[in-house]
């Protein structure tokens, strides 16, 4: 009796194939977009309209439903870009490089949201529109890292060169971003003792705030994934377009 064929194991590397990625993302995208829209609406409406005020912070506590998810995404998107850059540098999967490129502007947006909402949230507490709070300052530096990354992609013509250089930048930048976090904490320890926006992690967030927050976080994650799929598809198409144009020129 001959050996039965081995079952085909699904490897995530199959999605490194642009065609397979386009196929899968094609049917996945509307679902992710729809579900994340629902989560966002439910979470934000719940948080904005149906939660009480905080005894200390008044109605400004409602800002956590946008500030915390945006801040989490700002950092996680950079981590995703780091992973994607490593995969590109090591395994040369174009989809990975393009995914990192696609993710960056979403990260910029999330960082800006975190900065604006963080500053606005801090104003009633600190009496100033901007305070060099360690966390806010770290996000400002993260914004600069994102900006440099996007600018480098835009500045270089050759796509593979751009992918390589931005990949190396992401790597080195990640090390310095972590260093900066510690440096900024060190830099500000003497000034605003305990005045940072501590509601999100250190304090115990009451359940009544916590559940709508979870829904909002899910919504933001879903939004990121949807936008990432959309933008990566665009980048893959753009790459194909450039290749076709080059072929046409040579013919």
């Amino acid at each position, binding site marked *: 009796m001959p050996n039965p064929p081995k079952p085909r194991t699904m490897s995530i590397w199959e999605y490194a194939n642009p065609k397979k990625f386009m196929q899968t993302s094609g049917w996945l995208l509307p679902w992710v977009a729809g579900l994340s829209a629902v989560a966002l609406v439910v979470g*934000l409406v719940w948080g*904005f*309209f149906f939660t009480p*005020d905080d005894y200390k912070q*008044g*109605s*400004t506590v*409602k*800002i956590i439903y*946008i*500030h915390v998810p*945006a801040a989490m995404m700002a950092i996680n998107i950079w981590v995703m870009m780091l992973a994607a850059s490593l995969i590109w540098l090591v395994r040369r999967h174009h989809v990975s490089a393009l995914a990192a490129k696609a993710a960056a*502007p*979403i990260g910029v*947006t999330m960082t*800006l*949201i975190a900065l*604006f*909402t963080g500053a*606005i*949230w801090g*104003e*009633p507490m600190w009496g100033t529109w901007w305070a060099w709070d360690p966390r806010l300052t770290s996000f400002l530096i993260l914004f600069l890292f994102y900006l440099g990354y996007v600018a480098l992609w835009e500045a270089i013509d050759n796509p593979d060169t751009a992918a390589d250089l931005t990949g190396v930048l992401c790597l080195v930048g990640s090390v310095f971003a972590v260093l900066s976090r510690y440096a900024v904490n060190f830099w500000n320890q003497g000034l605003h003792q305990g005045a940072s926006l501590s509601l999100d992690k250190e304090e115990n967030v009451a359940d009544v705030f916590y559940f709508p927050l979870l829904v909002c976080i899910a919504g933001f994650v879903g*939004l990121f994934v949807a*936008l990432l799929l*959309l*933008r990566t*598809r*665009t980048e893959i*198409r*753009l790459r*194909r*377009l450039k290749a*076709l*144009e080059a*072929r*046409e020129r040579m013919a």
Partner: protein
Amino acid sequence: MMPDLGKYAAAVLSAYGVTLVLLAAIVGLSWWRAARVRRALAAQEDRMARDG
């Protein structure tokens, strides 16, 4: 319907406002660029199919 935001109304509303504007911007931009590239690619593929 609107909860009483008290003295922090401006802060809360502007925070939500900025967020919605920025989210709309990234979604809108991504969508518009996707449509534009899809159209350009389709046009290019058509052109090359016709020319043989």
